[in-house]
């Protein structure tokens, strides 16, 4: 029998069900997550002690002893209506994220599927906690909804593989009270093919690739993994990064080896790296010489020694560090003045951002980062030619 904070009842039921134990008894109490006040804990347990005793001693019912699962076979076509009706239907079913969606019609999904040579029913992964089947078609449907382009499919498929990696755990940090946000870093030639921004405002809205790749992964988290806000996702504060936190590394203007090369891939490979971010801060270094940049980093990174960090360095600030001979490893060693033995390799570095003097520090989960290689379809160049010119053209005033 499990003691569950009353707000977590749906989360507890989903967790028990996903482990094949829907009959596990629960007693709801009033002690919030992570609470430490002993008077409140004592009062909370005192109020339910009789329920606990009943839960432990009441004979099992037939349903509890031998639970039955209702077969779930969702229809492929779920609705027909106009744009507004489709949007309302998806939102009310809990399948959308609050922004309008593109209706995933047969035609739109077929066009999205042109972005991969894999058949629609190919199973990329089963994503926990629900173990939903991330088939190529389901990925494509969610990609259409998000407004993605077909050329993003190879990256999205690799992203799903990253989400399924055991290194990030069975629930992939998506249900944590800590509201981690997936942060996706793309490396290799695909960055240019997809126009993934690595320059000015790369983490701001305005680029279709940066915006919709992350949005698709968010919809996949909801509709394939089965992680819904306030139901399974018990993030207390929430995280704006969950809209979309996607960036390319600027390898051309970096003095160092790219992130994916550091992690064993070839420079010519295209990869996607997944890291779970708690928060993001922008820092103006004390000066633009190497020592000033590094001392600023130590000042800001040190207080959070318990976790991990991604340090985003603009090409402008990377230059003086590189020219003074600082390698990525030197910077990591210099920054982690009090390394935590339980967290190997806690600092990652990548180069991105416009030509300016800002450092980005992303602090996050102690789980290791995951990098997956992107496999491209045979007609990739033709596909890229078809969609690459979709870029904003701003009127000057």
């Amino acid at each position, binding site marked *: *029998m*499990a*003691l569950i904070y009353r707000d977590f009842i749906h*989360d507890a039921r989903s967790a028990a*069900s996903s*482990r*094949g*134990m829907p*009959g*596990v008894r629960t007693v709801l109490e009033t002690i*919030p*997550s*992570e*609470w*430490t006040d002993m008077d409140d*804990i004592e009062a909370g*347990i*005192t109020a339910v*002690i009789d329920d*606990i005793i009943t839960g*432990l*001693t009441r*004979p099992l019912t037939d349903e509890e*002893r*031998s639970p039955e699962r209702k077969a779930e*076979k969702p*229809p*492929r*076509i*779920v609705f*027909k209506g*106009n744009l507004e009706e489709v949007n309302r239907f998806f939102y009310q079913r809990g399948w959308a994220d609050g922004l309008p969606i*593109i*209706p*995933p*019609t047969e*035609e*739109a999904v077929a066009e999205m599927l042109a972005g991969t040579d894999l058949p629609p029913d190919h199973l990329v992964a*089963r994503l926990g906690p*629900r*173990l*939903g*089947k991330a*088939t190529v*078609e*389901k990925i494509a449907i969610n990609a*259409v909804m998000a*407004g993605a*382009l*077909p050329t993003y499919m190879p990256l999205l498929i690799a992203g799903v593989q990253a989400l399924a990696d055991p290194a990030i*755990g*069975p629930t992939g*940090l998506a249900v944590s*009270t800590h509201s981690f946000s997936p942060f996706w870093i793309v490396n290799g030639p695909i960055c240019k093919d997809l126009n993934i921004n690595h320059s000015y405002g790369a983490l701001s809205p305005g680029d279709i690739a940066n915006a919709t790749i992350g949005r698709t992964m968010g*919809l996949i988290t909801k509709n394939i993994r089965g992680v819904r806000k306030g139901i399974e996702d*018990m993030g207390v504060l929430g995280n704006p990064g969950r809209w979309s936190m996607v960036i390319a590394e600027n390898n051309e203007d970096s003095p160092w080896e790219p992130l994916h090369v550091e992690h064993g891939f070839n420079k010519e490979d295209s990869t996607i790296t997944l890291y779970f971010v708690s928060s993001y801060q922008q820092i103006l270094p004390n000066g633009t010489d190497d020592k000033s940049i590094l001392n600023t980093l130590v000042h800001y990174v040190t207080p959070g020694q318990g976790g991990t960090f991604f340090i985003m360095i603009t090409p402008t600030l990377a230059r003086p560090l590189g020219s003074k001979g600082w390698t990525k490893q030197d910077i990591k060693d210099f920054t982690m003045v009090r390394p935590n033995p339980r967290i190997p390799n806690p600092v990652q570095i990548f180069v991105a951002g416009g030509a300016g003097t800002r450092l980005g520090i992303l602090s996050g989960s102690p789980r290791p980062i995951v990098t997956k290689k992107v496999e491209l379809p045979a007609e990739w160049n033709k596909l890229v030619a078809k969609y690459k*010119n979709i870029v*904003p*053209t701003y*009127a000057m005033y």
Partner: protein
Amino acid sequence: MLNREVHPVNTKKTNGQYEVLSPWAEADPIPLKELAAPRPADLSGNKIGLLSNAKRAARPISSVVETKLKEKFPTAEFSQYFTLNAVGPPEIETENKAKFEEWIKGVDTVVAAVGD
């Protein structure tokens, strides 16, 4: 201003109507585990297991549960088990499987405090 007025992905509609596909994934039925162990009719004289995960409210909750149950069932025995995990796989799927199974065999019933 975008250089195309409509989204490039084909959303061809018929009379303003869209027939749309489900984004909700299918999932294979998860094998259900039967709850085979009978529940004790009375906790007196039973060995009660108290399982706490690594969430910081879990251990204090288990301690209070033990105190309260002791008051009502003075002949009950208690055994606490602490996991170092809060968000990871269940203990039975970790390297502590054997230790956990041994603990489970030694108790008559279990109250789990997960701190959430």
